[in-house]
């Protein structure tokens, strides 16, 4: 009986211990910092420009107390503000911004990071340290370059229907899914750190005719201006939209694209879908060869319905794509040493021994390699 009582007492002690554990946890964690949601300033988009020896950071911040802030996002009124701050590093600039905003900056819903054309990207790890170390920032946040300054892009208020950040974010996401611009995100900074190269979408801002501007931003629009190729921290090449599409296709990770072809002296456009890519690396005549085979379906205008037209269109598309790819490989890899297509990753996957041999100087291998692009087009 006494043993049973002792057992019950021991069990009760455990129950009290559980209650104590919960209470202590509650008490202890309260000494930490939990934030009410209205104590945070939500940053939608961010622009980083070079400012002499330091950096100039522009932030688009949601204004819940502004017009349109009382219930849902008011589609008729702007409810963001743009804040600019300076510092030697991005972290310093953000500290200044936080002090200005009077709240904790929250980057959990950062839609876009835009880098100014002149920004030095030699040490991306240091530049993006604020983002990589912040668990709030989404690793999939798109990073793009501005054709001009990032601050101009941040200050654009594209339309009353949505915040500029959402508009730019959607523009880039759409461009990525349509194969117009490369998919470059925060998670890819690690690869850039290793290889020293990057290819990212380029945005261009255009003002409205009245050139109006305010704290909320200036009227205008933003468009995709192609792709910016970065090497060793510097912008080395701007690819126009057509070149940009070719390079995105070459990288082998897009499911859709578009191209133009000529038939009977007339120029048509074709939508490329069902894109599948296979690659292999082999040695031919003592030289490593990377062969990339593309199989895709081209949807041509409906008036080209005859078999001859389809065949001619397929041939033209194939020849054009193969030629463009070869030219892009020649210029970007052989001449400039910028592997923006993930070729070295492919070599690492397909021929690991070869990759290990050139681990310290991958551009040497890439310049040595031959590239074969085989495109099979099925016209629909």
């Amino acid at each position, binding site marked *: 009986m006494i043993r049973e009582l002792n057992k019950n007492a021991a*069990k*009760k002690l455990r*129950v009290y211990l*559980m209650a104590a*554990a*919960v209470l202590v*946890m*509650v008490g202890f*964690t*309260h000494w930490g910092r*939990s*934030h*009410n*949601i*209205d104590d*945070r300033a*939500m940053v939608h988009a961010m622009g980083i420009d070079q400012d002499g020896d330091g950096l100039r950071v522009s932030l688009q911040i*949601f204004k*819940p*107390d502004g017009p349109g*802030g*009382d*219930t*849902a*996002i008011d589609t008729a009124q702007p409810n963001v503000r743009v804040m600019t701050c300076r510092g030697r590093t991005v972290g310093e600039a953000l500290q200044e911004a936080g002090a200005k905003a009077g709240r904790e900056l*929250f980057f*959990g*819903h950062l*839609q876009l990071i835009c880098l100014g054309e002149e920004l030095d990207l030699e040490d991306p790890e240091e530049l993006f340290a604020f983002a990589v170390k912040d668990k*709030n920032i*989404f690793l999939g946040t798109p990073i793009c370059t501005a054709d001009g300054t990032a601050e101009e892009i941040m200050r654009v208020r594209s339309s009353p229907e949505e915040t500029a950040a*959402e508009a730019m974010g959607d523009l880039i996401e759409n461009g990525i899914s349509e194969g117009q611009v490369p998919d470059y995100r925060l998670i890819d900074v690690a690869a850039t750190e290793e290889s020293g190269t990057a290819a990212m979408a380029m945005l261009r801002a255009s003002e409205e005719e009245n050139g109006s501007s305010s704290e909320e931003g200036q009227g205008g629009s933003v468009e995709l201006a192609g792709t910016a190729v970065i090497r060793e921290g510097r912008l080395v090449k701007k690819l126009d939209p057509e070149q940009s599409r070719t390079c995105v296709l070459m990288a082998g990770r897009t499911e859709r694209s578009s191209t133009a072809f000529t038939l009977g002296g007339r120029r048509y456009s074709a939508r490329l879908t069902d894109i599948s890519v296979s690659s292999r690396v082999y040695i031919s005549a003592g030289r490593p060869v990377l062969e990339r085979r593309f199989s895709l379906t081209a949807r041509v205008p409906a008036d080209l319905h005859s078999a001859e037209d389809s065949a001619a269109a397929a041939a033209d598309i194939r020849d054009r794509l193969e030629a463009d790819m070869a030219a892009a490989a020649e210029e970007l890899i052989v001449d400039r040493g910028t592997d923006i297509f993930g070729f070295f990753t492919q070599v690492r996957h397909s021929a690991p021994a070869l990759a290990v041999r050139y681990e310290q100087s991958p551009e040497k291998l890439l310049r040595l390699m031959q590239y074969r692009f085989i495109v099979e087009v099925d016209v629909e």
Partner: protein
Amino acid sequence: MINENSPIGRSISQVRSDLSALTGNSMDLNITEADLGRARLCVISAEGMLSSQMLSEMLLQPLNDLGKNKDLTDAEAFDFLTKGSLIAPSSNTVSTYGELLEAVYSGFAAVCVRGTGKAAAYGVQGYEKRTVSIPENEQSLGAAQDSFTETLRTNISLIRRRLKTPRLRFEIIKAGRLSGTELCLAYISGRVPESILSDLRRKLGSIRLDTVLDSGYVRPYIDPCYGLSVFSGTLSTERPDQTAVYLNEGRAAVLIDGSPFVILIPALFADNFRTMDDSCEKGFYAAFSKLLRYFAFFLAIGLPGLYAAVVMFHPETLDLKLLLNLAAAEESTPYPLTVELLLVMVLFEIMREAGIRLPKTVGGAVSIVGGLMIGDAAVKSGLISQPLLIVVGITATASFVLPELYPAVSVLRIVFILAGGLGGLAGIGAASALLLCDLAAADSFGIEFTAPASPFFPSGLKGLLGRDSFYDYEKKETTAAGYSGDVK
């Protein structure tokens, strides 16, 4: 010194004086003396406990007829009462004052004959009792609409009518030194392990309270998880059909005289999610309802805490538009979200308590005041935000889906609000782990509380997620004891 264990006196005057001394001349004890032939006797009864008509027809009339025999002796009269007649279906012979008064206060009429030192007691109860009505707390759409009452024998009959097998047994155990409450242990012989029955008999017999007035007085003695877990190892029901189902499944039931709630043992966690409507609907709908109840349980416990955790610690997981709406809504409120949640939950519990205690005539006013106070004025004044109100509303509605678990849900909800509001999702994870382990450790009379999920019994899976088909019921005899495979 006369006490309850003293034998009944041999003379009627002695009986009268002894009873007066024992009861302090209580006005509700009626003693009517009579001489029948040469026999002298007295009829003892309690005020308001008898049916006058039954007393008159079943006892007094036969006695009067007997009294026409002028030569009737005391012994003959006592023989007539105890052996020579069938006066009432329920009768017994008592020999001490304690037994006599217990019978009289249970609605029996006792006849004491001079010289015998005994009394014959007959059940002619006619006290006021509530009629069988619809269940207040466990309503259903398709199942029976009767419920237990406060009268033990009525409840016994409600069960007996549903289980006509001779294997259904009822055992009476008395508890309560002053109340002398009858507890009835009901079971189907051969279905319940004898170890559980003997354990129950021992525990019920060990109650040393002065009064046992309700099922809540008995539960601490027989619920193995009482004080050790937020969940109970017993079930409480006011439905006779539900009781019959559980008796058939090898559980025992404890009926308490004076309580319309029957305690069922052993109980599993999954039993809290069963209703009689499961048997009345088609299998697919029963499964749908069952899953809905499980979901309601998680909503009731976890939604406010998750809401607080996500909004305060992990707002990045929410959709941007939703987050902006929440931010705008919270902008005008003065208190942190955790405080708002606790405030509203406490207010809700106050209103719920008020709704239970208030007379029905003013109950509607509480709804109006509550709705106005919380629903309208509090939001418009900026005390709380609208999204929070939606969360609380969903939580409150979900918690009413499982009335049996309401006490546990109410407390756990507060714990999860604190855990989530102050520790984020890590706090929720930690609280969940502790709750899980508490649940895992519980067992009810040797049967693990989480059976048939763990230990896993494939035969119980269908019932866990929905309902066994009636063809399956025909084939197998599922008993709770069948889930005790792992416990020694």
